[in-house]
């Protein structure tokens, strides 16, 4: 197995303070040297941009304090609520599919006893993860274009005969959900599989002897033990999904603007910054998205208990 697994499994070092910090001077000076570059990067690309976005979001174009004017402006924008609705609908579809199917597929792959089969299945599920971002969207443009698609029969069966028909706005949330699932699910299946391997064989064995079926074992033992990982996956995916950008951006370009270029919130922020030269409005939207991501992350770090804290 891998180093990190071994590392994590081996006895955890007592969390106490390191011995001998009394002879401090040189030691903590060296510590600061060790963290210096990382600290500089954290400040430059984590803290400062966030603070600058806060500043821009609460000032106007001339740098005067504007209160919440930028927020009321972007939220009152006729494109704002539709963008929220688009992203929300996409998120619901994607997250439900992710949670249900990833758990299901991970448990099934885990029950497969034939080694090569289980290994091949995992590889097949996980490889599309290499095609992230623009590449996977491009691939799916092909798949969804009935003239070139490898599954054109299926598309025709569903009543689509041209690309433009496939990507009418009402279809986009499921389309994006499918793309995101195709790219991202495999990684999580592999991770859940790893987590399932950590469930003690004795527990499963005992359940079997008590007469539990495979389904009962999955439902009563494996799923509850996966809960932590499922919520991890859910939170990470929720945070990432609110950032939807590349999929609608490329589709908009590929469809000659049948898909609007302000379909998602991040696109709207981009439009504010680069079409309207309104950095204050762009900062306000970015800040709203950042607050959502921060809140999710903070709840998870402080309540989730998945990550050990020193």
């Amino acid at each position, binding site marked *: 197995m891998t*180093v990190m697994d071994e590392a994590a499994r081996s006895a955890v070092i007592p969390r106490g303070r390191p011995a001998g910090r009394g002879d401090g001077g040189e030691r903590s000076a060296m*510590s600061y040297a060790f963290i210096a570059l990382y600290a500089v990067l954290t400040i430059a690309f984590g803290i400062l941009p966030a603070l600058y976005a806060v500043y821009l979001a609460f000032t106007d174009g001339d740098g005067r304090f504007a209160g919440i004017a930028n927020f009321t402006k972007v939220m009152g924008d006729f494109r704002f609520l539709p963008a929220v609705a688009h992203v929300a609908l996409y998120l619901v579809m994607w997250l439900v599919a992710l949670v249900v199917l990833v758990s299901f597929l991970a448990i099934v792959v885990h029950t497969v006893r034939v080694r090569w089969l289980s290994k091949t299945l995992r590889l*097949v599920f*996980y490889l599309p993860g290499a095609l992230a971002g623009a590449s996977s969207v491009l691939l799916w443009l092909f798949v969804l274009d009935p003239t070139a698609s490898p599954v054109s029969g299926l598309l025709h069966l569903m009543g689509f005969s041209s690309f433009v028909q496939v990507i009418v706005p009402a279809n986009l949330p499921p389309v994006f959900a499918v793309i995101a699932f195709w790219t991202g699910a495999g990684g999580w299946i592999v991770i859940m599989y790893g987590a399932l391997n950590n469930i003690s064989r004795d527990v499963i064995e005992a359940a079997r002897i008590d007469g539990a079926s495979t389904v009962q074992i999955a439902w009563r033992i494996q799923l509850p033990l996966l809960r932590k990982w499922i919520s991890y996956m859910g939170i990470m995916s929720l945070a990432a999904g609110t950032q939807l950008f590349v999929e609608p951006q490329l589709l908009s370009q590929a469809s000659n603007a049948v898909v609007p270029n302000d379909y998602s919130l991040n696109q709207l922020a981009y439009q504010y910054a680069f079409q309207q030269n309104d950095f204050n409005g762009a900062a306000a939207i970015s800040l709203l998205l950042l607050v959502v991501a921060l809140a999710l992350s903070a709840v998870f770090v402080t309540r989730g208990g998945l990550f050990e804290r020193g």
Partner: protein
Amino acid sequence: MTTVDAGRHARRPSGVSGWSGRTIVAVVVAIFVLFFVIPMVWLLLATTKSAHGLIVDHPFLPGSLGDLAANWDQLFGFQDGAVTAWVGNSALYAVGALIITIIASIPAGYAMALTEFRFRRSLLVLTLIVMLIPNTALVLPIFLELNVVGLIGSPLSVILPMSFFPFGVYLTYIYFSTSVPRDLLAAARLDGCTELQVFTRVALPLAAPVVALVAFFSFVQSWNNFFLPFVMLPSSDGYPVQVGLTSLLASTPAFNPSSAGAQSVQLPTLALATVISVLPVLIVFLFAQRFLVAGMTAGGTKE
């Protein structure tokens, strides 16, 4: 194991997990296998076809090497070799960010795991929180910031933000705090090592596995990054290949009818571009499945 298994199968209660249940599960899994495999296989085959062949030929029959060569020529002839430049840019950004990430995160993770200093805890919590924020969330704020200092358009505007990689620091932190005993460091100190020597002579030689792990995640993330370079680099010369794909897409008449002309790109050429844009990551992925599990589950096994 086999004998035990056989006994177990015999005892398995019938019902949903019986014969019919298993068939249904097998069919569902087969459907998902097709769902994951078909697009990839088809994409590879599409690169060997002509634009006409792509539409009329059977989707799962390979084309010819001649067509592959023609597609190759068209792709690398696009805008006088723009694709070569984009791939080079991607490599520059991803490797540049990788090097800075390693230099920044290995010592930082080490210090946070095995030494004591004043803001250790705050830095650790901050790292955890920022690590879970999607990296796109800070792109526009970083753009606004770098715009002030006039870095937009420079390779540094991409490399430096990519080098801020809290996940790498967290992985290093977990590695050092769980697999390098403090006693080892204490012994080195007793032997007269300075703090710097403790790090370079004891900790660093043990760090190879975590360096590989951080390198894997950093490289994949940087290579696939779209939003950051899309925003930071206004000129096509500076595009990484992921962003360059949008230029190709815009020049593909099949998707953008207004683009027909001398520089137009055919569908199989676009397919080839897609393959080339992911090739390095695909190769890394083929060999790194366990890295993924190791990295994502690091620290999570503690109940």
